[in-house]
């Protein structure tokens, strides 16, 4: 089984390195095929490992010693257990699909080889993150995905906005990572080890405040990666990257790493239910907060990004309330349908020549029938209609909130579910139904390559069946490791009222979205100029506030440091030294006039000086030594 583990882990790295060799050269199709093939290998290995884990075993290997100094011992160890195998399946499935899809999507891009190198490097980092058996290995993967995210958001580096967004994402993540690093240091300081099994076995002996702080610091790290408020602004801006990147990194895998961390560290969070409640409250807040922003946005990819943010909020509610397996289940289901949604959006973008405003599209269902079907399917799954994936995973989170008697969280999540349905179908209605507004802009859309649609098909199937088919086997498998808590509403009447009520509410929201946007788009000036619309449209003015409160003062400070400190002190000293030496040389080079007799004179002068120095030094040395004696 070790062989499969290493195959699953290192195939993407091999692909990335080989593609990287051709990174600077022109497009060569084989890099795309090779990396996709290796990803498929990785996927197959993961499936084999999954069957092995389903049979009740786990694999734990120590590849080599990494750090061994004094009492500190950290190996490169990898573990495949019920949680990591779930993540491996999600990562390899989505990334294989995205790799194959990207062969078509990036086919006209100059950086084709570079793109595949980055994308495979990302998958490798993500695998390290989920498979590591200690916190430091997780941190390495964590930073690796951060780096690849930066590379891929800024993939079109000639665009100012792309580089800006890449830097924003990178810097925000570093802020959170600092907290995470502190959390890891605290674990080592108090327990003397970073191995998961050791840490989780001994965490309960620590005093309460220490566990609380560890939990808080680790969660701040998770907040950065999963873009939770107040570190959420980078995710929407990260949509500057190519769409497959958005699908893989900023919807399905990397942003869920925060949820994975909380799920993985569940023995820590089980000790501190208060922090758990705070996480759940923040998650519910973000779920609604992001959904409201998605309601009015006019950028197709940003709408989906906000939807991701909102769904991450759902996952944190479940994880915070102790329903770790539910959080992981929603993570999995969400990865499938959200990646599908993004890839569909990629098809639309291609057809629309990179136009992102859905108000300039419309009526695409005739020309892009398959994309329409796939995106509708993904939206239905996202909205949580029976029997698609979202119904099983998202409604389960609602039930968790209800069973745990957090009725406020429950209502917030319920309203958010309605909003989710509304904005998803607002997007679908605007893009695929109604008048063909794009004709005014002289665009004639065409369907994507057939193989791209075939590549999306597995995701579509998973979006449909993953809830219904996987729920029971998944539950049985993963609760070997995670707390096995069943969330059932025991009163049958309440259960049916809630389920049917939620379904009706969601369907009404969808119907409203269709009614409002599917026929002709009427722009309601009064609403749009209203306070709330403007507030939501400007993302609660948070980017502006950050700009005013952090960026601009920092710019001022930097300018001050540059003009006053750097130029006037540091540079002045360095330049002064250089100038002194230069001027000395300028003055003294007349000595070398080539005349032998003047050179000899200089030599004599030098001799005399050395002689005087030698005599003076000897005299001084003797004086000191005599005194000492």
């Amino acid at each position, binding site marked *: 089984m070790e062989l499969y583990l290493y195959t699953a882990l290192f195939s993407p790295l091999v692909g990335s390195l080989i593609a990287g060799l051709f990174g600077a050269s022109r497009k060569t199709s084989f890099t795309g095929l090779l990396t996709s093939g290796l990803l498929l290998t990785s996927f197959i290995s993961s499936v084999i490992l999954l069957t092995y884990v389903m049979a009740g075993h786990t694999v734990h290997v120590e590849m080599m010693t990494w750090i061994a100094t004094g009492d500190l011992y950290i190996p490169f160890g990898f573990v495949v257990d019920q949680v990591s195998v779930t993540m491996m399946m999600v990562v390899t499935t989505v990334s294989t699909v995205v790799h194959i899809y990207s062969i078509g999507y990036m086919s006209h891009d100059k950086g084709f080889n570079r793109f595949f190198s980055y994308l495979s490097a990302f998958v490798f980092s993500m695998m390290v993150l989920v498979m590591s058996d200690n916190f430091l290995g997780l941190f390495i993967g964590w930073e690796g995905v951060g780096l690849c995210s930066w590379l891929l958001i800024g993939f079109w580096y000639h665009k100012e906005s792309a580089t800006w967004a890449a830097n924003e994402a990178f810097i925000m993540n570093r802020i959170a990572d600092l907290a995470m690093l502190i959390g890891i240091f605290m674990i080592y300081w108090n327990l003397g080890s970073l191995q998961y099994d050791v840490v989780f076995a001994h965490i309960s002996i620590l005093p309460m405040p220490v566990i609380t702080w560890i939990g808080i610091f680790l969660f701040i790290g998770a907040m950065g990666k999963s873009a939770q408020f107040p570190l959420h602004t980078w995710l929407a801006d990260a949509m500057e990257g190519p769409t497959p990147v958005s699908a893989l990194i900023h919807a399905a895998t990397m942003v869920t790493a925060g949820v994975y961390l909380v799920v993985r560290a569940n023995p820590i969070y089980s000790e501190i239910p208060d922090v758990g409640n705070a996480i759940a409250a923040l998650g519910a807040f973000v779920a609604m907060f992001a959904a409201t922003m998605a309601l009015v946005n006019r950028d197709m990819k940003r709408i989906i990004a906000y939807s991701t943010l909102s769904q991450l909020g759902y996952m944190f509610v479940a994880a915070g309330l102790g329903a770790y397996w539910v959080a992981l289940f929603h993570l999995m289901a969400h990865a499938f349908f959200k990646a599908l949604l993004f890839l569909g959006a990629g098809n639309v973008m291609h057809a629309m020549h990179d136009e992102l405003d859905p108000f300039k599209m419309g009526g695409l269902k005739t020309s892009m029938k398959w994309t329409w079907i796939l995106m509708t399917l993904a939206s239905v799954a996202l909205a949580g209609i029976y029997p698609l994936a979202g119904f099983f995973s998202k409604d389960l989170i609602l039930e968790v909130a209800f069973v745990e008697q957090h009725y406020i969280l429950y209502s917030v999540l319920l309203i958010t579910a309605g909003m989710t349905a509304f904005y998803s179908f607002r997007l679908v209605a605007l893009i695929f139904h109604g008048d063909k507004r794009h004709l005014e802009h002289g665009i004639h859309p065409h369907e994507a390559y057939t193989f791209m649609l075939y590549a999306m098909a597995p995701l579509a199937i998973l979006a449909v069946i993953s809830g219904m088919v996987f729920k029971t086997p998944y539950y049985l498998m993963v609760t070997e490791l995670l707390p096995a808590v069943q969330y059932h509403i025991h009163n049958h009447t309440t259960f049916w009222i809630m389920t049917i009520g939620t379904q009706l509410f969601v369907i009404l929201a969808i119907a409203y979205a269709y009614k409002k946007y599917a026929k002709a788009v009427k722009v309601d000036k009064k609403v749009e100029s209203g306070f709330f619309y403007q507030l939501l449209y400007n993302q609660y003015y948070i980017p502006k506030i950050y700009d005013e409160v952090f960026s601009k003062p920092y710019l001022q400070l930097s300018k001050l440091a540059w003009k006053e400190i750097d130029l006037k002190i540091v540079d002045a000293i360095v330049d002064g030294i250089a100038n002194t030496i230069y001027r000395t040389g300028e003055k003294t080079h007349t*000595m*070398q*006039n*080539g*005349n*032998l*007799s003047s050179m*000899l*004179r200089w030599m*004599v002068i030098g001799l005399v000086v050395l002689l005087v120095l030698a005599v003076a030094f000897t005299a001084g040395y003797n004086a000191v030594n005599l005194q000492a004696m």
Partner: protein
Amino acid sequence: MELTLNHYLILSTILFCIGLIGVMRRKNLLMLFFATEILLNAVNVGMAAISHYRGDYTGQMFAFFIIAIAASEVAVGLGLLVVWYKRTGKIDLDQMTSMRG
């Protein structure tokens, strides 16, 4: 009056100063060689005198080495001088400025 070590050393110093002044003042290359020889022999006198004074023959050995090296130096130097004179017709130091920095 008996000759002591000091007398030899004073002689050596006087010779050295004469040589040094010669090295600094002379513009004729041939004279420069003479001045160099005076410098070297001033040192030789000092070496031999101290060697005798201490009863240690190392200094005298050194004096022989210096004589041998000085002879070969003069041989090479005079050879170069002759070539230089043949090419330019002058042996004036102030005109040898091809090594200007």
